[in-house]
C-alpha cells in the first residue's frame, strides 16, 4: 500500500479524516452564510462591469458584453489620479496607525488599574459613526468657525485655509482618520500582546536583556500574526475610504482628495452609470487583493498558516 494518495499527498489516518469532517461541519454554517449573501452581489457587480448597463424602473438591463467600461476607466486621467491618491493615502495612514497603535498598546499593557478606563476611552473614536466623525472634523476644520483656527491663532498662525489647500486637506483628512482608527490597531495589538507566552520574555529579562531588545527581537516577531491581521484589514478599510472625503471635502479642492470609493459612488449614484461604476469597484477590489496577496506572501510564515 502506498503512503501517498492519487495527488501525491501523504495518506491520512481515519482520525484525521474524521477531524477534517468535523472541521467542515464547524465551518460550514459561517461559510454558507457569507457565500449565500455575498456571492450574488459580487458576481452581479463583476458581470455589470463587463456589460453595457442601463438602469431602468424595471431593474438593470444588461445590453451586451463589452470591455468598454474598463477601457473608459483606464483612459480617464481622473481615475489614475484618484488611484494614486488612494494608494499613497493608504500607505501613509496605515503605516502611521500601525506604529502609533503598537505604541499605544505597549503603554496600555503596562497599565493596571487604569487599563479598563483607557480602553473604554480608546474605543470612543472607533465607536463614532464614520459620518458623524467626519462631520465633527469638518466642524473643527471649518474655515469660518472651526476651533482649529482659534487654536492655531494662539500660536500666531492665522487664516489657514486647511480644507481649501490640496496638501493640507489630505493631511487634515489623514489626521482625522488616524484619530479614529488607531484605537482599532491598538486593541488588536494589545490582545496579541497579552496572549504572548510570558516565559520567553521572563527568561530574556532574567538574562539581563534590555526592554527595547526584548520588544524588538522577541515580542515583535511573535506579534506578527496579530499585526498582520490588523494591517490586512486596515488596508482594506483605507482603500474603501468614503465617508471622510465625502463629508469633509467632497473630493475637493478640485479632485485632489477624491478617493476611489468616492469616485465609485459618484459614478454609480450621481451619474447613474452602473457599468463603469461596477468597473471602478471591481478594479479597486483587484488592486486591494494584489496588495493583500503580496503582503501575505511576504509574511507567510509569520501569519501561521498550515497546510496539511
Amino acid at each position, binding site marked *: 500500500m502506498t503512503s501517498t494518495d492519487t495527488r501525491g499527498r501523504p495518506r491520512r489516518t481515519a482520525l484525521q*479524516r474524521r477531524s*477534517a*469532517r468535523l472541521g*467542515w461541519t464547524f465551518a*460550514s454554517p459561517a461559510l*454558507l452564510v457569507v*457565500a*449565500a449573501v455575498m*456571492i*450574488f452581489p459580487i*458576481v*452581479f457587480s463583476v*458581470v455589470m462591469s463587463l456589460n453595457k448597463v*442601463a*438602469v*431602468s*424602473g*424595471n*431593474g*438593470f*438591463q*444588461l445590453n451586451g458584453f463589452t470591455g468598454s467600461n474598463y477601457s*473608459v*476607466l483606464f483612459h*480617464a486621467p*481622473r*481615475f489614475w489620479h484618484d488611484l494614486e491618491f488612494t494608494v499613497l493615502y493608504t500607505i501613509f495612514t496605515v503605516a502611521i496607525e500601525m506604529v502609533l497603535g503598537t505604541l499605544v498598546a505597549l503603554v496600555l499593557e503596562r497599565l493596571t488599574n487604569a487599563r479598563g478606563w483607557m480602553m473604554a476611552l480608546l474605543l470612543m473614536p472607533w465607536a463614532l459613526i464614520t459620518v458623524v466623525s467626519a462631520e465633527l472634523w469638518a466642524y473643527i476644520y*471649518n*474655515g*469660518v*468657525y472651526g476651533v482649529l483656527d482659534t487654536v492655531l491663532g494662539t500660536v500666531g498662525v492665522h*487664516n489657514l*485655509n486647511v*480644507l*481649501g*489647500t*490640496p496638501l493640507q486637506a489630505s493631511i487634515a483628512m489623514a489626521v482625522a482618520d488616524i484619530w479614529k482608527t488607531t484605537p482599532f490597531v491598538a486593541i488588536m495589538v494589545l490582545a496579541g500582546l497579552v496572549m504572548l507566552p510570558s516565559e520567553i520574555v521572563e527568561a530574556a529579562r532574567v538574562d539581563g536583556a534590555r526592554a527595547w531588545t526584548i520588544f524588538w527581537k522577541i515580542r515583535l516577531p511573535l506579534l506578527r500574526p496579530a499585526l498582520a491581521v490588523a494591517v490586512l484589514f486596515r488596508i482594506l478599510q483605507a482603500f474603501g475610504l468614503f465617508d471622510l472625503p465625502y463629508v469633509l*471635502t*467632497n*473630493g*475637493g*479642492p*478640485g*479632485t*485632489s482628495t477624491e478617493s476611489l470609493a468616492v*469616485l465609485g*459612488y*459618484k*459614478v*454609480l*449614484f*450621481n*451619474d*447613474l*452609470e452602473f457599468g*463603469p461604476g461596477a468597473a471602478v469597484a471591481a478594479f479597486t477590489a483587484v488592486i486591494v487583493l494584489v496588495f493583500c496577496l503580496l503582503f501575505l506572501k511576504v509574511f507567510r510564515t509569520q501569519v501561521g498558516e498550515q497546510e496539511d
Partner: protein
Amino acid sequence: MRKLTRKSAALAACSAAVLALATACSSSSGSTAAPAATGSATGTITWFANQFGPTTSDVRKTLISAFEKAYPGITVKLEQAPSDSDTYRSTLVTQISGGSSSFDVYNGDVVWPAQFAKAGLALPLNSYFDSSYWNNFSNGLVTSLTYKGQTYAVPLFTDNAFLFYRKDLLAKAHLPVPTTWEQLQSEAATLQKDGLVKYGFAAQFDSYEGLTCDFTEFAADAGGSTVSADGSKSTINSAADLKALTYMRGLVTSGVAPSAVTTFQEQQSESLFTAGQVAFLRNWTYAYADSNTAGTSKVAGNVGVTNLPTFAGQSGPGYSVTGGWNLYVNPHSKNLAADVAFLKWMTGTQAQTIIAEQGGEIPTVASVLQDSQVQAANPAFPIAAKNKLNARPSFVAQYAQVSQAIYNNINAALSGSVSPQSALSSADSQINTALANTGL
C-alpha cells in the same frame, strides 16, 4: 462523503448565484406603457420627502393635514428622506430600479427630470394632466420638467438667489446698493479698508453642486454659458466664461472674499454673514428669514435684499439660477388616481400659499407669487418677481457628469491650483466627453 459535501456546496452556491442573477435581470416585468389613472382617488399613498422650510415647524405635516381635509378619502403617509440631495438620490435609484412600491410620490431635485426620465425612474405625466394645467407655471419652469416631449414632474416650489447686504454698513460708508459686480467689489474693498467689516463678499465656492449654480450665474452675467442650447457640446471655454471666472478668482486673491470661501457651502457662507463678518452675500431665499432671526443672527434687522448684480455693460439685474424641488411619481405606484390628485392639489393655490407663507419658499404658481398677502409675508418675494432667471444645463440627461466637470475644475481654479484658462479648457473637454457618453 467529504468530497461530496464540498462539491455539492459549491454547486449550490453557484446555482443560487445564477438563479438570483436571472431573477434580477428579468425583474418585475412591468409594462412600458403608462397605466391609466382610472378609478376614484381613494386609499393610502406614501410621500417620500426630505425636510424643507424652517426646521422649527414641519410644513410637510401642515400640507398633509390640509390635503386630507380636502380629500377625505385619501390618507397620506410621510416617509422621511435624507436631507442631502445625492444621498437621497442613491436610495431612490436603488429602490425604484428594484421595483419598490413602498412610496408613491417623492420629492426630487429640479435637476433630475432629464436624468430620471432617461433612466425610467419617474412616471411620465402627460396623460394625467390636460395641457391647460401647465399654464399655471412659467415656460422656463415647464421646460425644466420636460425630456423628449414628456413631462416627468410637477414643480413643488422654486428657489432664487439674491444679493444680501448690510444696510447699516452701506449707510455708515454712504455707499449705494451695488448694481454691477465691479461696483460690488470696489464697495466691499472700501468697507474693508475702513475697518467696518472683516470680509467683503461670500458665496458658495466649495467643490459641489452649489458652485455650478454660482458659476452659471456669473457666466450668464458675462454673457456666456456652459452647454450649448441643443445640448450637443460645451460652450464653457469662451471669453465670457473666462471673464466670469477671472472675476471670481480675483475676489479671492484681492482678499475681498476669504480664502476659505472655496470650502463654503450655503451654511458656512450664511454663518459668516449672520456673525456680522461679511458685507455682501449671495445666497438663496431662506437666507432672508434666517439672517433676520433675532435670537441667532447678530445682524438681524440690518439685512437688505436685492437682485444680484451683473457685469458692467450688461442690462438689467444679474441672473439668478433656479433651484427648488419637484414632485415625481414612482412608476411602480399602485394608486395613480390618488397620486395625481395629490400632485394637482400640491400645485394648487391653497398648498402653494402654505408653502410660501409657512415654508418660506417661492411658490411655482405665478398667481400665488403675485398675491399681495403672500408678498407681504416675505420681503424677498417682491424681489423674486423681478428676478432674471437662468437654469443650469440640466436638460441633458448627463447633467450630473457635466456638473461635476464644472465644479471640480472651477473649484481648482478658485483654490489657485490651476489657472482659470486651463480650468476652463479642462472643463470643456470633460463636458464634451460627458455629452458624448464616452467618459467615466
